[in-house]
């Protein structure tokens, strides 16, 4: 983390930017097609959604969380991480509290399948926890639901 980036983040805060804090353990992005949103609803767990438009307040995590994000294929993997997600990850606090990534996508996109999750994993040194396609099947919902429960239980045991 170059210090210049740190300063830049602070500057943003001092600018009095509209910021929204969340202590949810699951933070996700979903475009207007709402696939990811629908998947998250089926998990029946607390969550926060990264804003779609730059005019909306910036989302800042206050507790450790897992990030769930889609990848839309194409452009040979370039720009796989959407600008809204990049904006979210530019916050150092958001990067520090990130514990893992779940990716959604489509195997039709070949090597770009769930690429955004893999890129974030590599960049932020957190594991890719799970990948699934489109809105996810009922098996995916179950796997992620149970997986997250176990994941957080283990984390809390480690901490104590």
């Amino acid at each position, binding site marked *: 983390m170059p210090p210049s980036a740190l300063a830049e983040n602070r500057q943003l805060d001092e600018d009095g930017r509209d910021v929204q804090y969340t202590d949810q353990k699951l933070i996700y992005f979903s475009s207007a097609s709402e696939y990811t949103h629908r998947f998250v609803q089926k998990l029946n767990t607390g969550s926060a959604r990264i804003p779609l438009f730059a005019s909306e307040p910036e989302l800042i995590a206050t507790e450790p969380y897992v990030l769930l994000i889609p990848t839309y294929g*194409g452009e040979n993997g370039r720009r796989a991480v959407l600008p809204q997600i990049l904006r979210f990850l530019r916050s150092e606090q958001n990067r520090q509290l990130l514990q893992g990534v779940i990716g959604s996508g489509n195997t039709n996109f070949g*090597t770009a399948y769930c690429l955004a999750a893999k890129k974030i994993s590599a960049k932020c040194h957190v594991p890719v926890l799970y*990948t699934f396609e489109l809105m996810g099947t009922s098996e995916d919902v179950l796997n992620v639901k149970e997986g997250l429960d176990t*994941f957080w239980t283990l984390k809390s045991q480690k901490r104590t």
Partner: protein
Amino acid sequence: MTEKIKLTHKVEAINWNRIQDEKDVEVWNRLVNNFWLPEKVPLSNDIQSWGTLTEDEKLLTMRVFTGLTLLDTLQGTVGAVSLIPDALTPHEEAVYTNIAFMESVHAKSYSSIFSTLASTKDIDEAFRWSTENRNLQKKAQIIESYYYGDDPLKRKIASTLLESFLFYSGFYLPMHWSSRAKLTNTADLIRLIIRDEAVHGYYIGYKYQKGLETQSPERREELKDYTFELLFELYENEVQYTHDLYDPVGLSEDVKKFLHYNANKALMNLGYEAMFPAAVTDVSPAILSALSPNADENHDFFSGSGSSYVIGKAVNTEDEDWEF
């Protein structure tokens, strides 16, 4: 029959600086950036590999590709064009013209494969087969009848099922060859088509759901029932078609799993729940890995299976935006 296809009535100059639906711009950009032509794929490198196939395998490959040519021709010439008059925004119309053109590129690319690998006589023979195979003709006819029908949302259902389901009995074969290190350049070309079809199915399915929002609960229920009925009708025909083609090489059972897997994805593109349970969608890992080289890693940190606790390695993090 043809008189039922209408042209858009009142055309206004398209203003790309006034966007009603951001999805139109996003998908337009994605399609433009994904643009490709068959001439860029070094198909001639497959000539030697083609020579290692048995006569049965060659015949199967030719037939599968003429079947795909028919579907791409239908989608390029009628399908995508038939969606234009029902578009909700002028930008949606423009996206359909892009889709229509790309389908024509796909249709032409099979001819590039043919002319590289086969003789004129074999090519003509395969095209003759495509006009005579009952199951192939039937699937084209079922879809075509909805394109000429007068229900815009049913047209989108038929179109999404074509893009996201009907191609896959054919796409299976080049993935199979690729997993055995055969016809690998042809497989590269098919992967480009597969990538395009995913964006097409996603977009048309999205527009279907947009249209659905304005409908009454009864009508929504009717369209949902209709989707599943049409899928079943097409599925039964696909099973027949699959046995027709793949029984001689013993691959039918795995192809059917691939059909189930993709039927689920087609339903999801239309906003419905997947229908086939995991027990019948377990496509052979070799095929999945030919489709998406990293999918077989099956990131499942939760269950502890697969290559799990692997932090993604340096995967193209060249994006300028990554400098935090």
